[in-house]
């Protein structure tokens, strides 16, 4: 074991110095997402989003000394800290210069503390939204292109109020993401005078949710808010509630928005509503077109955030004129925010040119990126209403 560790470290060191020393012809970026586990249906589009940005940069030939960007995919399992950390180490050993990931909040925290910080690696997560990550000491290495859940809690409370919901039952998936989001929703909703009748956790991957639904139904409430995952417990809870007649309408935060939910539940889900990080920026439309041409669904949850995450890393490398995480990490906030020329998806080549010429850029990307505080997205949200078996956008807020 010791030998293995030594070998890995040695490999990581040589790989690291080899790339940091010169502008190698190849820049490897890790794509560390949950290809298996609770959000496995979202991960492929997210990875494709990140890789679309890499391909665009490679094709432009403008990054550093016309470097090629290659993606190295690895799995977090979404809720498997051991797997995620091991794969994080593997990426470092393979010589990646930046990581797009992790995806779920729990594993992202684990990778950050056990892999990114000790190795001085920059991580940009497209989808970790736990408020806890804002406060985590990250040595300026961690950024996210999705907003913190405390913001989502406020948005959800506003939507509930506008729809005249007086009381909610609240269930969350039992992990960092679910707990953080549930707390945020409860605090915000109670602040505006709403009543939360019960807050109950559910475990993912268990299939049978009669016990949870029984308690939720007993506590009652106008609607049931499910802060979970659409491929997992969240779906099971909704199905079981509908079957037993416990609730008819559901509040669906970010993790529950995806095409598979209305498809799996069927017409009974009509009338349920929720919100997901997203914006009506010009970039969103362009990205949707680009992704269609590339053969994947860019409107899938967090696909656009993934594109932005990868693009931010690459633009920052250009700005620092180095692929060394220690050097370009500090530039991420610069390229993401004003001042500078606004950059949409598809214009990465132009952005690289501008940066090389010493000009400022303000990367907008597919989500209208605006990083605040400790390097997280300020957050605009798409309000969703399920209508005729489809997630439809009501408006952006």
């Amino acid at each position, binding site marked *: 074991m010791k030998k293995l560790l030594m070998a890995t470290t040695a490999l990581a060191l040589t790989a690291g110095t080899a790339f940091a020393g010169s502008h190698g012809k190849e820049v490897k970026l890790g794509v560390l997402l949950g290809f298996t586990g609770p959000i496995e249906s979202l991960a492929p589009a997210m990875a494709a989003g990140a890789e679309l940005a890499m391909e665009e940069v490679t094709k432009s030939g403008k990054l550093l000394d016309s470097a090629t960007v290659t993606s190295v995919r690895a799995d977090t399992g979404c809720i498997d800290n051991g797997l995620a950390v091991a794969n994080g180490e593997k990426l470092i050993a393979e010589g990646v210069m930046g990581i797009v990931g992790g995806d779920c909040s729990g594993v992202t925290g684990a990778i950050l503390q056990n892999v990114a910080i000790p190795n001085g690696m920059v991580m940009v997560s497209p989808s970790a939204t736990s408020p806890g990550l804002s406060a985590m000491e990250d040595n300026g290495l961690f950024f996210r292109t999705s907003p913190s859940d405390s913001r989502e809690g406020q948005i959800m409370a506003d939507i509930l109020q506008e729809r005249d919901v007086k009381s909610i039952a609240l269930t969350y998936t039992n992990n960092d993401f679910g707990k953080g989001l549930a707390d945020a929703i409860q605090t915000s909703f109670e602040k505006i005078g709403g009543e939360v009748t019960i807050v109950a956790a559910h475990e993912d991957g268990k299939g049978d949710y009669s016990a949870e639904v*029984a*308690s939720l139904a*007993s506590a009652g409430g106008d609607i049931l808010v499910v802060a979970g995952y659409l491929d997992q417990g969240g779906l*099971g809870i909704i199905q079981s509630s509908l*079957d037993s*007649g416990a609730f008819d309408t559901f509040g669906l935060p970010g993790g529950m928005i995806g095409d*598979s939910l209305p498809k799996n539940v069927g017409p009974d889900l009509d009338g349920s509503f929720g919100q997901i990080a997203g914006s009506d920026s010009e970039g969103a439309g362009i990205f949707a077109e680009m992704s269609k041409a590339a053969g994947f669904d860019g409107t899938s949850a967090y696909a656009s955030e993934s594109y932005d995450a990868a693009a931010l890393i690459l633009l920052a490398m250009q700005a620092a004129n180095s692929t060394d995480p220690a050097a370009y990490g500090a530039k991420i906030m610069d390229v993401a925010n004003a001042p500078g020329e606004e950059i949409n998806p598809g214009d990465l080549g132009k952005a690289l040119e501008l940066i090389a010429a010493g000009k400022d850029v303000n990367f907008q990307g597919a989500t209208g990126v605006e990083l605040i505080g400790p390097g997280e997205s300020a957050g605009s949200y798409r309000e969703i209403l399920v209508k005729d078996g489809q997630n439809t956008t009501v408006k952006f807020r």
Partner: protein
Amino acid sequence: MDFLNAIVALTNFVMIPAVAYGSQLALGALGVTLIYSILRFSNFAHGDTMAFGTMITILVTWDFQSRGIGFGPLPTALLALPLGIVATMALMLITDRTVYRFYRAQKAKPVVFVMVSLGVMFMMNGLVRLIIGTEDQRFTDGERFIIKARVFKEMTGLREGLAIKTTQGITVVTAIVVVALLFWFLNKTRTGKSMRAYSDNEDLALLSGINPERVVMYTWLIVATLATIAGVLYGLDKSFKPFTYFQLLLPIFAAAIVGGLGSPQGAIAGGFIIAFSEVTITYAWKKVLGYLMPENMGPDGLVQLLSTDYKFAVSFAILIIVLLFKPTGLFKGKSV
């Protein structure tokens, strides 16, 4: 009237789901317990065997659906089930020939078998995911409900609804039929008796001329049948997802051990004990008490003994208590 409401609420949210879930666990636990008593190891691949059988059934169901073959108000999957069972039987026999027989010939220790079954589990895990993918699959068709909550409310004028899903009805009926057949087979037929003899005392059974390879083969065939039926019923009632089936292993083993590993009666009792304990102990009694207590005396709180977070803790606490005081399980199985 309020009394009726209370009864209906309790039936709808506690009794019906627990009975259906209990039947599914019982069928799963029966498979585990049969392997334990005859082949003498804990088969960790059982959850994935269920997944494999269900997957084949789903694929055949899709084929039937595309050709317009249906089963009236019942799910088409029931028609496809026999083919799923046959395919799982084939898989079980192949695994036994290629993997387990080698270790049997070496008279490997049970713990080696457990590790081997762990390996088989990962293989099946991958196989199922390769063929059908990782996503949720729904394959229920036909009539969804026997009684709908809304219809029941209109019919009776009660405030509480009562819903019985077709799949829940099918689950319970099938479970009863399968268990009756299994007990008949084990107690009345020659093969069944030789299996029990082999389980009770391997050497004596061999001396009396029972062919061990035949016993092993029949065991795998029965286990394949039970696993596929349990898996398909579970998938019909909830949904099919390889990951969930893998996780089912825990409650199934808890059920088998509480009942007494190696005892078929125990597996059934264990299945229901685990299912009921998961649902009842964490149930919030607010609504039921609200109906039963005089007006304005209803409780404000949830009247919940334990939060649902502790659902699994409850079944495992029961498991530990049983093992401490009755190490062989409630029905005198083999000690673990």
